[in-house]
């Protein structure tokens, strides 16, 4: 009966209820919608990072990461590849040669990262497999071909079929140089990626650097990013720590990791700020509803209603307001996320800025169950908590004084 009273009471003043509901709806909607957008931002950033040659985890010879030279390569790849067998089913991995090199043609020269890849395996792990827009991807036998980025080609004023000379330090510390022919041009989300990487067949890079069958790194992509920590741990146990380092994308991309953490905090602060903004309105509305009914509460109390029940009744009003607002807010939030998830939001106008921050041009909102839960829990629990104030006020009403009022 108390609940029924609460429900009926909120509809006694429709305008007031409508206004406060609007506040709650906009609040909840903005939490869900902007939360999803921020998640979309950070998800894309993580995916970009992982696809841009990072993978979920990587194995290197200890010391390679601080000093990425060919000397610090993995000299017994068989041991590492054996250890990879303990990876969970569905995991894909690829070996790479990866060194700093200088690329030059008749007009330009610049530093790039020379990546020697196994074309078949690489395509299953990183972005390069389906990023080639002109020409072709590397083939199983490809001693001369190199795939470079679109921005690189522009900068070097070159084109498909032209020669490119790469220089790098070989296994003996001498400068090795080798001419390649541009067989493919790839597109990437970020221009810096297009300028940074040149892909050749792993056999060609091994021959150039004189490293036999050795490799520089192994990148692993797991079926789900939840398995990362466990997989890294089991690999660490198989591979001696003083010879190999196993690192996850969180170690490899510290900036992405930090950004994701900041977003987590920021989303929560946003929830809180919105809640405080509507909390003031909620308290005020309930407070008004209580004070204009002082006589009524006085009457109920003198008819024997317990103060406890008065609190429950007022809370019930607040409860219905919150639930209605939350339901509508969630619905509109989900609908607007769904509407945007088809095409995403195109932020090309800020492409250089996005580039600067390492993000991609089109953002798709991403719903995270935890965010929706946090948003609703924040609104609901704290909404009820602040409503306690007017509720207790109502319960403290002295029946005699209240009845004596005009």
């Amino acid at each position, binding site marked *: 009966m108390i609940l029924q009273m609460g429900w009926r009471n909120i509809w006694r003043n429709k*305008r*007031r209820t409508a*206004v*406060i509901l*609007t*506040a709650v709806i*906009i*609040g909840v909607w*903005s939490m869900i919608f*902007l939360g999803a957008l921020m998640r979309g931002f950070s998800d894309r950033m993580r995916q970009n990072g992982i696809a841009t040659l990072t993978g979920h985890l990587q194995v290197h010879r200890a010391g390679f990461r*601080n*000093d990425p*030279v060919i000397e610090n390569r993995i000299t017994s790849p068989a041991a590492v590849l054996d250890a990879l067998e303990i990876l969970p089913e569905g995991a894909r991995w690829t070996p790479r040669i990866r060194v*700093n090199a*200088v690329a*030059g043609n008749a*007009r*330009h*020269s*610049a*530093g790039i990262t020379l990546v020697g890849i196994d074309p078949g395996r690489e395509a299953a792990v990183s972005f390069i497999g389906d990023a080639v827009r002109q020409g072709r991807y590397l083939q199983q036998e490809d001693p001369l071909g190199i795939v470079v980025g679109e921005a690189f080609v522009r*900068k070097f*004023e070159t084109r498909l079929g032209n020669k490119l000379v790469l*220089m*790098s*330090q070989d296994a003996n*510390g001498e*400068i090795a140089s080798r001419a390649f022919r541009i067989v493919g041009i790839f597109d990437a989300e970020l221009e810096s990626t297009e300028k940074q990487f040149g892909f050749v067949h792993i056999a060609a890079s091994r021959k150039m650097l004189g490293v036999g069958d050795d490799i520089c790194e192994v990148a692993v992509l797991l079926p789900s990013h939840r398995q990362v920590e466990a997989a890294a741990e089991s690999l660490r146990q198989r591979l001696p720590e003083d010879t190999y380092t196993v690192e996850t994308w969180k170690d490899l991309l*510290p*900036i992405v*990791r*930090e*950004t994701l*953490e*900041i977003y987590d905090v920021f989303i929560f602060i*946003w929830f809180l*700020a*919105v809640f*405080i*903004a*509507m*909390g*003031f*309105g*909620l*308290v*005020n*509305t309930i*407070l*008004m509803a209580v004070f*204009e009914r002082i006589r009524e509460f006085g009457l109920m109390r003198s008819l024997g209603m317990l103060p406890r029940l008065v609190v429950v009744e007022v809370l019930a009003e607040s409860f219905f307001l919150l639930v209605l607002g939350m339901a509508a807010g969630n619905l509109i939030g989900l609908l607007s996320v769904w509407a945007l998830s088809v095409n995403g939001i195109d*932020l090309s106008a*800020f*492409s*250089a*800025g*996005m*580039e*600067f*921050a390492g993000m991609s041009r089109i953002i798709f909102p991403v719903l995270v169950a935890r965010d929706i839960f946090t948003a609703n829990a924040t609104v609901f629990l704290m909404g009820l908590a602040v409503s306690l104030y007017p509720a207790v006020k109502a319960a403290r009403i002295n029946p005699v004084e209240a009845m004596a009022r005009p």
Partner: protein
Amino acid sequence: MAWRNIWRNPRRSVLTMSAVAFATLLLVFMLSWQFGSYATMINASVKIHTGHLQVQAKGYQEDRDIRKVVPDPEAVGKILSRTETVASYTFRAEAFSLVSSKDRTYGVLVTGIDPEKEAAVSTLKDMIRKGRYLADDDANQALVGILLAENLKVSPGDELVVLGQGRDGSIAATVLTVKGIFSSGQDEFDRSVVHIPLHDFQEIFAMRGAVHAAVVICTDLETISQAKKEVSEALGNLEKGRSLAVLGWKELVPGLLQAIKMDLIVGFIFYLILIVVVAFSILNTFLMAIFERKREFGVMMAVGTTPGRLTRVLIYESAAMTLLGSAVGILVGSLLTAYFQVHGIMIPGTEEIAREFGLPERIYPQLSLLSVSVGAGVVLLITLITAAYPALKVRRLKPLEALTAV
């Protein structure tokens, strides 16, 4: 009358004012924070290397072609010295080259600088961590970035071999001694740059007296656009001056400007939504303040108060509340910001991001007329619009009906 009306229900008024104050406080603080971090970002990037303005050959910014030069630096220097808004300037020349130490080779940007003038433009001199800064009469000495020095495994006194391509396409080669090691805090810069004296550079790379850029620091951020205009005009009168371009920091670091713009826009969307929630939150108070006083207004109208006057009283009432709320918000917000402006804010877990952009660990919000007035202004405007709605409704009140209303 309006003032007294506010205090007839102090609790409600205080809650309403708190909502306004909260929104204002948040906006003042966040905007100051944003502006502060932008100033830090701009200064960091300008002071480390870029400068406020650069005079370059047209097209050099895009393709960094060693042949696109400023052929007669002296003539440009004369113009710059004549311009009042220019605080200091220096010349630089740069070329991508292979730099080898005893056992490592990296591709780096070798930059020729005028040691004395450079010190007045960038903070390079203060960045020296080991060894010493270049002197004017140094020959074949070099300053190496700290990360590059680690990669090359060199310390002051060690030798470096430079191999590159001169302006005329000839091979440029020389041996340098490391004189100092600098750390800018910006990883990319510390990993990829070697500074040598400009006259050495011009000799090694066959520059025939030419440079690649005149880097200019203006008297302050506000005079940049004026300086840019004056210098461009003066250059136009120069022989061959038409092949030169004056670029501002916005063109030199386009990503920075866009990142700032994006951050601002995203910020404004969040703030706007927050303010709308606040507006709906307090709309109820304003509405109620009027409807529970219907009788009162009826009396006032019956004794001859015109509807216009009544509206005015109500608007004064709401305006006084929002103004008071804003004032409190501005005051507390400014105090809070001022505190952090002195002490700085450190967000734990952002070290990597700060290093990426060369930012200091602590961000200092910057309290300014703009940051205070924009936030407070928008809140005030929207809440006043909200408050005006019920005040205008009161005009339609009919004295007779109002008097009989309960």
